[in-house]
């Protein structure tokens, strides 16, 4: 169990800085998810924590100890890789025991730890098999087993579920959650899937282009996104954005529609303001907020609810409404924003106003 902290960490490949100054503290026993689009640098940060990459500047600490110069094997961490990285020529048992044998644990201690991990992960009957004789989900579990038996200070997960099919991914997500509840080991989990991030994280770190955009509990990030990027990345379907111009105490978003700015952020709003509304914050008819007259392009009826796609002044809007009162494609439809549910961003900087 350990706290992990990064202070002023940057990473450059040649002249290109891929990770800009980063400060992160991960508390003991916490499950933190780093989420961002592919290529944003989240895996690089994880690999710097693991010691597989060196940081260009800054300091990385695990359990209070500076580890910049420490070899991966001496950092007391275990990592689960996207492609599982199981040793193909070893049995499941030997895969899990490999690290323990190297650390010269007693034979019965190794046996006990492996059996315990196998029991937790329901791998008991597969211990003699080779990785190639296992299904994707089982391989994933072996990879986690190899991490568990080490009883490390922290688990690092590098997109561990990306190679699994959708159904298995949901199942493994729940298993990881359960596992963390039982073991309470500090965990850092990297994914590009915001659903994984929302469901697994105690806190999540949203990363974009090598910059930490926001750190917070999933719902806190969802409700109070700090930037256009975070607002668009977290939530599915993503938030609708309407670029507009300041007009008195509101923002004109086109077709004469003015969305009023809340009084507390009027001072900080510049000329160009983007208004963001989540699909589920629209209601059919008059809900009290600004009203949009839309011509429905496409309807996706999902059963419980329906997604309406419509154009509005050059932007593409997605509106989520209750599933059985769905208008037909091509028809006119009026929706309004729930009061207080519009977000305002500075179009130039991408920062949320008043945040």
């Amino acid at each position, binding site marked *: 169990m350990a706290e992990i902290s990064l202070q002023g960490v940057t990473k450059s490949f040649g002249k290109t800085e891929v990770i800009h100054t980063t400060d992160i503290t991960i508390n003991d026993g916490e499950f933190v998810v780093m989420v961002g689009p592919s290529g944003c640098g989240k895996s690089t940060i994880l690999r710097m924590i693991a010691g*597989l990459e060196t940081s260009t500047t800054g300091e990385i600490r695990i359990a209070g100890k500076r580890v910049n110069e420490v070899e991966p094997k001496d950092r007391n*961490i275990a*990592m689960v*890789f996207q492609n599982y*990285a199981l040793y*193909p*020529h070893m049995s499941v048992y030997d895969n899990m025991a490999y690290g323990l044998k*190297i650390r010269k644990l007693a034979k019965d201690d190794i046996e006990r730890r492996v059996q315990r991990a196998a029991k937790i992960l329901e791998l008991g009957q597969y211990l003699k098999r080779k990785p190639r004789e296992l299904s994707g989900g089982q391989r994933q579990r072996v990879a986690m087993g190899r991490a568990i038996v080490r009883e490390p200070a922290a688990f690092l997960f590098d997109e561990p579920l990306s190679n699994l099919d959708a159904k298995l991914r949901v199942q493994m997500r729940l298993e990881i959650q359960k596992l963390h509840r039982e073991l309470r080991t500090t965990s850092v989990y990297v994914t590009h899937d915001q659903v994984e991030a929302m469901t697994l994280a105690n806190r999540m770190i949203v990363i974009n282009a090598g910059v930490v955009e926001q750190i917070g509990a999933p719902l806190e990030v969802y409700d109070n996104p700090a930037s256009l990027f975070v607002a668009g990345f977290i939530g599915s379907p993503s938030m609708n954005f309407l670029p507009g111009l300041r007009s008195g105490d509101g923002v004109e978003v086109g077709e004469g529609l003015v969305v009023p700015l809340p009084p507390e952020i009027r001072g900080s709003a510049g000329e160009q303001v983007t208004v963001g509304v989540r699909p589920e914050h629209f209601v059919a008819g008059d809900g009290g907020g600004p009203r949009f007259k839309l011509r429905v392009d496409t309807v996706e009826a999902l059963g419980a609810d329906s997604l309406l796609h419509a154009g509005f002044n050059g932007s593409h809007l997605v509106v989520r409404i209750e599933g059985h009162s769905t208008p037909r494609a091509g028809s006119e439809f009026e929706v309004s924003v729930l009061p207080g549910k519009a977000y305002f961003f500075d179009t130039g900087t991408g920062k949320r106003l008043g945040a």
Partner: protein
Amino acid sequence: MEKRVVFKSAWLPYVLLLPQITITVLFFFWPAAQAVYYSFQVQDAFGLTSKFVWFENYIYLFKDSHYLSSFRVTAFFSVMVATSGIVISLVLATMADSVVRGALAYKTFLIWPYAVAPAIAGVLWAFIFAPSIGIVTYFLKKLGVDWNWIINSEQAMLLVVVASVWKQISYNFLFFLAGLQSIPKSLLEAAAIDGAGPFRRFWTIVFPLLSPTTFFLLVMNIIYSFFDTFGVIDATTEGGPGDATKILVYKVYYDGVKAADLGGSSAQSVILMAIVVTLTVIQFRYIERRVQY
């Protein structure tokens, strides 16, 4: 899914196969059959008459101490060539794989010797190590080593081994490099996190995963040392001094062409054929059994 191409015409597939079959029959099956045929005969010195003698040539061979010594020479030679060739190229491939700067240059240089014909490689090494004018001989003499492979059989063997290994390193290197590059980096990273140092990672992860490659190369190198080294030996020692470097394939040539014993030479080549067939069968059996991880 059916991946085979199905021809509508009845004769087109045969026509397309014809060139390959012609070459195989003309240059492989026909000479092989000839060898078997001649191996049962004894010819007079002028090649005017021949007599069918059944297995007499074979029986004679296995009583012939020269032939048995050639077996021992070949065994020693191929073990030396195969093991040192494999070990050196594995070391080189591992190093070239881990090199960051100028990797392409290293790889190119290491593959070059493969483009050199065996006879030319032989001449090259014979020249460098020539007893009177060789540059290496000169330096060896300065170190107090009396180098003369024309009269010293150990040195002659060393020379042909070195020249043969040098030729084959490129081939081995290529396969090892490909094998190394097919091992996912994350496996080694996982092992590093599990606590294995570089040496241990090599022996517990890399080497076992390369074992199919190593086995394949072992067979290929033995075949190489049995047959393709003819050019190297002919250009340097010509089997000498005495019979010190007269490997089986060179003896086939020597007995048949120089000593004009066509029957005995044919019997020897039939035995060689049997050896290479055995090696190939072992290879296919083994590789098929554990082709993938």
